[in-house]
């Protein structure tokens, strides 16, 4: 079936099987491989993207459910060469090691600050519980999100 959506400002259309997941559409039809697949139980959040401005795990929905909507992936977050404040904070706080969880973690964190602009550490830990990282022990991820919130930046 024909599915069309706007990903990072560009219209992407493709003829896909009805069962195609949004994450597969992003990776295969749009050839954007920054969005990773880490599990098959919607547990890890590596595939988190923004759909109509809100964070979603793109493995939990069908591509067709995103038909006609706006999607932002990690590739669409920076402003040209200028990193988004969350990306910058992840860099400055050493909040990534192997990098596999990073795109989803950053997208989820940006969305968290949209909802809770000045979170406590506990609110960050609760808010990003659905994004798993195996390298950092989360310590520096939490630090990065708190630092980014200090600069008052959500995506919107």
């Amino acid at each position, binding site marked *: 079936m024909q599915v069309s959506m706007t990903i990072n400002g560009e219209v992407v259309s493709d003829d896909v*099987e009805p*069962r195609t997941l949004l994450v597969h559409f992003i990776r295969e039809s749009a050839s954007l*491989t*920054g*969005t*990773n*697949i*880490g*599990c*098959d*139980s919607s*547990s*890890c959040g*590596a595939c988190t993207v923004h759909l109509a401005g809100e964070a979603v795990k793109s493995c939990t929905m069908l591509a067709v459910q995103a038909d006609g909507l706006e999607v932002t992936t*990690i*590739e669409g*977050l*920076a402003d040209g060469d200028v*990193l988004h404040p969350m*990306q910058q904070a*992840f*860099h*400055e706080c*050493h909040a*990534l*090691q*192997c*990098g*596999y*969880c*990073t*795109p989803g973690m*950053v997208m989820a964190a940006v969305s968290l600050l949209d909802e809770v602009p000045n979170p406590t*550490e506990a609110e*960050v*830990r*609760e808010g*990003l*519980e*659905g*994004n*798993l*990282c*195996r*390298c*950092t*022990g*989360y*310590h*520096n*991820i*939490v*630090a990065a999100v708190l630092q980014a919130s200090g600069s008052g930046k959500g995506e919107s």
Partner: protein
Amino acid sequence: MPSILGTRVLRREDRGFLTSGAIYTADIEDSRLDGAVHATYVRSTMAHAGIEVDVSEAVTMPGVVAVFKASDLDGPKAIPGPVPVFPESMLNWPLLAGDRVRFVGEAVAVVLSEHPSQGEDAAEAVLVDYDPLPAVVDPEMALANEVLVHEDVGTNISVDFTDLGMATGYSDDDFFSDCEVVVSGRVAQPRTAAAPLEVRSAACAWEDGRVILWISNQAPHMTRGALTSLYGEQVAAGIRVLVGDVGGGFGAKIAPYPEEALLPWISSRLGRPVRWFESRTENMSAMGPGRGHIHRYTLGGTRDGDLTHYRLDVLVDGGAYARIGAFLPMFTLPMTVGVYDIPNVETTARSVVTNTAPLEAYRGAGRPEATLTIERAVDVFAAEIGIDPVEVRRRNYLPADVFPVTTSVGTEYDTGDYEASLDLALGAAGLDALRAEQRRRRDSGSPKQLGIGVATYVEMTAGPAPGGDEFGRVEITAEGKARVFSGSLSHGQSHRTTFSMIVADQLGISPDDVELIQGDTDLVEHGSGTMASKSTQLGGSAIHDAAGIVVSEARRLAADLLEAGVDDVVLDADTGRFHVVGSPAVDLSWADVAAAADEGALVAESKERRGCTYPFGTHLAVVEVDIETGQVRLDRLVSCDDAGVIINPMIVEGQRHGGIAQGVAQALFEEVSYDADGNPLTTNFADYGIVSMAELPSFELVPLETPTPCNPLGAKGIGESGAIGSTPAVQNAVADALSYMGVTHIDIPLTPQKVWAAIDSATS
């Protein structure tokens, strides 16, 4: 200008990871992979059975190119584990199971399809007729040999380390007869999943008679070696292993797996490139976990707290085939006594096969197992004699003035100051205030009891094993920049940053002008890979030495150009320019020197072979135990870890954080489990208690540097320390919280159910 070494240089790796994502194996675009088929493995759903495989329906499914089973294989049929001491049938893991499956998840057939989803559909249409056999899952039951995993061997014991001379064996029943106090116990250390966020993935193509294998892997040269011996003359032109970005390994991506080793045959047979990646469910059932030890200890000493006699018995659940995990007592036994001066020690160790996934290495790989048992035993001993476990530790540490020291099990520790690490950790934690709060809660009968646990560890990095050396090469480009080749393989450890700092420091250039080449067995001639916390101490030292040779050669060339004696030419470490002593106005850049050099002149190689090092530290955990529900919450984790000289504190702290989280997770949440029939119960992140950030506090790190004389950098390993100290600290803390009830030991993971049961049993 001070040296760049020891400073918090931000990572050079980050930008791509943060903007477009890294290029993991499944992301690779390469013309050699154009038109690749996708491999989907069909996996056994029974732990132990005779099988017959029928692919006749599957081959007719849409998009299916071929379906192969074991009888189709006319090339390699099995991949041997990396340590050839095991009986042949235990050592050789079939690429596809033939007439017998030995664990749930074992591959029995492979579907090749145009698209992965077609492969998934067709895999379900492969009919496997199972003739069930009894399964043995529990390693202690495996010792009884009532069910044999490999009948031809006649026993489930795959290796006995006493027979190999690596364990002492036990002398006689009088061993503890001089001891005033003897405690003993059983310490279960269940299997824990490495669970890298990126699952296993590989791709393969043939080019001019050569195999090109892209793979998510920690040790490309060892993988090349394993495949070369597997395929032999069939790939006379050689094998090129390419490793791009890797989404975590933690020990589970060292040796290649059957699913990966079969790809060259598939690609050859079909005349097409092939890609493979697994699902998380496949990963959790077929990529080996780590730990999987059951220890029995006896610890004896005096009533005033001197530890004098220790026995350790190690039983390893090696799984269905003997991989590296089955041999990791090689790292447990040398660390038996940990940080203590215990003069009389005896050990035994065995591995058994069971109908479970073959055991691999996992962060710490044998050393955390030794630490957990001795650190538990010391606390149990302290409880028995009624002395603070901190004081028992202090009384029995190997003192700082005896290093280097050979322990009672014959291991030579390089440097250490265990009491310093204890004092620093206790000071940072504020032990007195914590004990006061603990007393207050006990006196008030609070349902939320506080526990304080301490563990002091010593571990062995770059342990003596195959691949115990590392290769480095440094060359200067025509532009005067440095190109570094390393046999080490960063999969999150930040080599690009750390190694460029080491070279920049030597050459006086910017780290941004240092290019790192890794993960290509053609471009990097030798290598052993990243494991055993050895990348900086071996890989970094090799690069350090190679850079030093390049500087010497460059000074000789500069002397010619400057018409001066070589001893009068200096390299200004701040500017990276050469000049004659006292005449800095006339100078030469690296590019000037490179222009005058013959091709190949400014190139040097080094192979770092020097010995392993023994980093150490003390971890202190503060837990709150809800005695009504058994729920444990980690409130604080204070760690003082020594890693010798530190190149980049930011990166070292990151390694410690990650290790601590995994060690805490092992103590509180994570366990790979099976039912009695061998059905895995933890095949995804919903069932497996993988730790999230909501379950952890931020960690409190205390620095400590005791340089090692074992390498030119003075660096020790740090990648695994966090996972070694934190598990016993947390386990000791929970026992401490409940000690007033008479609880002395609860096995990990300390789930609410287990903790509640221990409380219930102690109070009823």
